[in-house]
């Protein structure tokens, strides 16, 4: 592995401007690394080598003229959920077979406008539905981390499994991802990387294949807190094309990172201490609390009393919204078409052939809870519980808490196919600490905090006030300073 691929985005920025290496050399180093690793890890669905080299060349021209933009020459991987003009965009699904958008998502356009280079499209759970990257039409992604002394393939988490694995295995300097019920934070925790889901409305959803419109949010996965801050600044924008995007200016997130946390109030929610939680998760949480105390923050015990209802409410709201958003995949205007005797036959056969099992399950649950006679009992009730979940957070923030510290996941990464016989609900439990932030629209960051007894990474999560990502970066840096960097040992 070339040393160029080991550089963080902040280091790349310095190195390129200091002309220590060229953008072309850097991109070539990454393309080589991907070539050597992708058969084993399956992180990339498509590698856009020619495009990447052309973009890198263009970056070198700008660098030569002293016109470097914020991410000039930085090679990134893009989750397959983002529409990239002329390039494979299928949300990890068979039903979007052959789809090449004629437009670019706002988030990725922001990145190209800042000079970043596209290495390719990253693997993901189909339509972002999953917590292990095992539901992709393109096969599972393998976590670059392995248990000490073991050689079993582990999951990288999901749905942004490709993004997390690629960043962790140094197959890109950073990646875009999305989080609807934990899909940035959980894979970041499973791979020892940093992932942030910003406040709902912080990043534009225009051009991102929709799963659940009131929950989806784009965000970066990177190797350090600083890198995540650099990426988010470029990704975020107010977008008139997305009516749910907020007209809030994007601050310089990097600037907050070295600010002191003395006097910051860190809330520790008692309801996140779940029955049967592994001792190692509790231990890393306690370590986090000690790190904040040592840095001068004040630890406050808090109660978020509707916490346990967030996951069941999520598994009504998200599938309901998905059933509506996925109705457009009908074989008419794009993607797979299976011929039928009449239009209904075509729809039914196309969708049966095109959607995977988990997607079908969620579309059916969603359709059921929205159907006549059940709408109030399920969907309306879940939306009321959602108001209560949000209110819990609002009360805590109003009482002066700046950020909430909690585990990111209930376990470390598990084996591929190890949950194949389990009930779908068991897989859903992986999201238990993450969905609350999506339900309340709040920003949440996962930062690696330690390893378990098998040597697998464990992450901690911080949840913040709306549009206060700056505090999350500031506080996240405290965890990173204490816990250090996490790099998997290369076995591929």
């Amino acid at each position, binding site marked *: 592995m070339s040393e160029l691929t080991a550089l963080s985005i902040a280091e790349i920025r310095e190195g390129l401007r200091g002309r220590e290496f060229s953008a072309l050399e850097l991109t070539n180093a990454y393309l080589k690394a991907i070539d050597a690793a992708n058969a084993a890890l399956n992180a990339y669905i498509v590698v856009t080598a020619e495009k990447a080299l052309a973009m890198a060349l263009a970056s070198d021209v700008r660098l030569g003229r002293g016109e470097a933009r914020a991410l000039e020459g930085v090679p990134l991987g893009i989750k397959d959920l983002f529409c990239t003009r002329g390039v494979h965009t299928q949300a990890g699904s068979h039903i979007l077979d052959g789809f090449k958008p004629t437009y670019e998502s706002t988030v990725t356009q922001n990145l190209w406008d800042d000079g970043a280079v596209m290495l390719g499209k990253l693997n993901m759970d189909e339509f972002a539905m999953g917590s292990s990257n095992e539901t992709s039409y393109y096969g599972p992604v393998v976590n670059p981390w392995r248990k000490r002394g073991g050689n079993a393939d582990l999951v990288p988490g999901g749905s942004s499994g490709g993004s997390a694995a690629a960043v962790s295995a140094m197959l890109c300097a950073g990646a875009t991802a999305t989080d609807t019920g934990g899909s940035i934070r959980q894979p970041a925790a499973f791979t020892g990387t940093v992932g942030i889901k910003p406040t709902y*409305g912080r990043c534009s959803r225009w051009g991102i294949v929709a799963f659940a419109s009131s929950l989806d949010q784009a965000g970066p996965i990177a190797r350090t807190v600083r890198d995540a801050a650099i990426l988010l600044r470029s990704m975020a924008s107010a977008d008139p094309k997305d009516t749910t995007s907020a007209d809030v200016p994007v601050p310089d997130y990097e600037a907050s990172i070295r600010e002191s946390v003395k006097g910051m109030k860190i809330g520790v929610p008692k309801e996140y201490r779940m029955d049967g939680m592994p001792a190692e998760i509790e231990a890393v949480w306690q370590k986090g609390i000690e790190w904040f105390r040592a840095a001068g923050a004040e630890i406050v015990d808090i109660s978020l009393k509707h916490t346990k209802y967030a996951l069941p409410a999520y598994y009504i709201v998200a599938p309901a919204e998905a059933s509506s958003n996925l109705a457009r995949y009908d074989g008419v205007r794009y993607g797979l078409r299976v011929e039928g005797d009449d*239009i209904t036959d075509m729809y039914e*056969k196309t969708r049966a052939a095109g959607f995977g099992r988990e997607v079908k399950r969620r579309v059916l649950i969603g359709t059921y809870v929205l159907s006549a006679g059940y709408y109030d009992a399920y969907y309306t009730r879940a939306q*009321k519980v959602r108001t209560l979940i949000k209110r819990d957070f609002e009360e805590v923030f109003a009482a002066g808490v700046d950020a909430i510290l909690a585990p990111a996941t209930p376990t470390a990464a598990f084996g591929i196919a190890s949950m194949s016989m389990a009930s779908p609900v068991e897989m859903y439990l992986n999201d238990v600490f993450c969905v609350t932030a999506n339900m309340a629209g709040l920003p949440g960051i996962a930062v690696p905090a330690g390893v378990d007894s098998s040597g697998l990474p464990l992450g901690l999560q911080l949840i913040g006030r709306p549009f206060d990502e700056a505090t999350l970066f500031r506080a996240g840096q405290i965890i990173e300073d204490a816990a250090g960097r996490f790099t998997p040992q290369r076995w591929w």
Partner: protein
Amino acid sequence: MSVDRETVKRVAHLARIRVSEEEAEALRGELNAILGFVEQLNEVDVTGVEPMTSVLPMPMKKREDRVTEGGKADDIVANAPLTEDHYFLVPKVVE
């Protein structure tokens, strides 16, 4: 609340997804597991609580009523399985 096989088939038809008898049976079990899991929401007292209709309070953004784009029919049909003269072709819709 639990679903029987007939309900699964009815819901599948609403969602326009063809399911075989075997699939319907497997889905019945899985859907019931999920419905069993969400049952606990009935424990919550939601009296007087409004359902969340907007994640972050914001007025609905409106745009000026002006034509700002168009004339790209080629782009619009570019990914379609079957088209003719910028129409999407589909099997018979009406008897």
